[in-house]
């Protein structure tokens, strides 16, 4: 019973959404289910937050390794949550945006979350550079192609690329590195991306069918 009802729900909802495309009166179902999906997703966010708290409170209680940093997570989470849910310091009324300039939520976002997020991602520049230095070797034709394409794209988006091939006349302007970078992005790159997208599309379609028909049921976990 604990397996059958979820399988039935997946089958009914999935089939209904596919069939609704072909039957006009059911056309609005997509919008309705999208809203339902968003509402359940909000509860999933709350579940995630609850789980985060549970994990860190457990870590704190059992004095596990680095337990002191769990206090930072719990404090950061609580302060941001209170600032956002109660719109503390928000200059507008209750209908104004949660991230209105001047609110505590906005200030924490700008002075904590945004710098942390941007720096975390920019940190990847160092690791990618160091990894590519070790991995990029023109060992064979394929690796050479990858290397050349990456090099042209990198160079084509810098002033150095413009400077290097700026002397090439307009009649052969395709050979200028910035133009070559644009051409690579718009032609061979597009072809490769499209082949991958068609593959992904077919994969998603077959996986959706497997889920709707109950062939794929790993998302249900065990039998308990």
């Amino acid at each position, binding site marked *: 019973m604990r397996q059958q009802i979820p399988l039935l729900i997946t089958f009914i909802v999935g089939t209904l959404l596919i069939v609704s495309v072909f039957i006009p009166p059911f056309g609005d179902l997509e919008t309705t289910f999208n809203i*339902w999906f968003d509402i*359940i997703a909000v509860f999933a966010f*709350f579940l995630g937050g609850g789980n985060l708290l549970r994990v860190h409170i457990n870590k704190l209680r059992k004095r596990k390794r680095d337990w002191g940093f769990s206090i930072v997570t719990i404090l950061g989470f609580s302060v*941001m949550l209170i600032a956002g849910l109660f719109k503390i310091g928000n200059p507008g009324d209750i209908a104004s945006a949660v991230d209105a300039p001047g609110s505590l939520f906005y200030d924490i976002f700008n002075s904590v979350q945004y710098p942390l997020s941007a720096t975390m991602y920019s940190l990847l520049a160092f690791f990618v550079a160091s990894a590519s230095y070790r991995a990029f070797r023109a060992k064979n034709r394929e690796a050479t192609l990858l290397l050349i394409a990456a090099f042209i794209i990198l160079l084509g988006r810098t002033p150095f690329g413009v400077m290097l091939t700026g002397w090439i006349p307009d*009649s052969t302007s395709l050979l200028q590195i910035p133009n070559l970078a644009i051409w690579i992005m718009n032609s061979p790159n597009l072809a490769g991306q499209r082949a991958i997208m068609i593959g992904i599309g077919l994969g998603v379609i077959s996986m959706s069918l497997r889920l709707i028909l109950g062939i794929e049921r790993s998302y249900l976990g065990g039998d308990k």
Partner: protein
Amino acid sequence: MRRTTYIVVAGVVLLFGLSWVLHAVSMSGEADGIERAFMITMAAFLTLAIYSFLYKDNPFYKFAEHLYVGVSAAYWMCQAFWSTIVGNLFPRLSEGLSSYFQQPYQASGWNITYWIPVILGIMLLMRLTEKYGWMSRWPLAMIVGTTAGLNFVRYLRSDFVVQVSSTFMPLLGEDPHRWQGFGAFISNLDLSATGQLAAIVSNWVIFIGVICGIIYFYFSKEHSGAFGRASRLGIWILMITFGASFGYTVMGRISLLVGRITFLFKDWLQIIS
């Protein structure tokens, strides 16, 4: 904790305080100067704390990492609450709640159905308990069914039909580079980036490239002979794609790095104007 750790932490706290005071003094004429000075100092401290990982894992990095996890989780929860629960759910569930949150009430006979996702959402939260954890399978099934049903149609349209139809393009040029005869083609035979030759070559590369790329992903036939050669060409196209994607990603990360360094030198240290 070792003595060195205490000294380093004390030094960082001292520098943080000094930076705050100096910024507050320089902003003394502005409204909320002290608050803004604290925000800039905090952002600079967190930026440097993350970059300290380049040396090795250390308590400052761990502090910033743990703070990021907590703040991000709460950020998305608040955004989801105000945009979906207040913006989409309350106006359909109750007139009282709608007026309290100053949202326009959306009266409809079908509004009662919006209790279904609420009940399913509460069932999802049961995952936090051991005894009733199984109840979370129902909303999960709903999420999986909705995703499968929507993606089936969406991907069939956008990732399959549209992509296949876009691949079949005029191989002898199209407006504004429509084929006007061999003579005109020869007379325009230059390598200008917007010329007819470049446009025609692009269309050929896309057409052949997509077909060969798909052939590479077809594993039900041995890749030998003409099929093997097409598959080989497909690998080359894919390698160019991966190279281009790599270059593009690196440039994106580098522009973020430039943004952070600009913040440190311009907003925090005020060395550059």
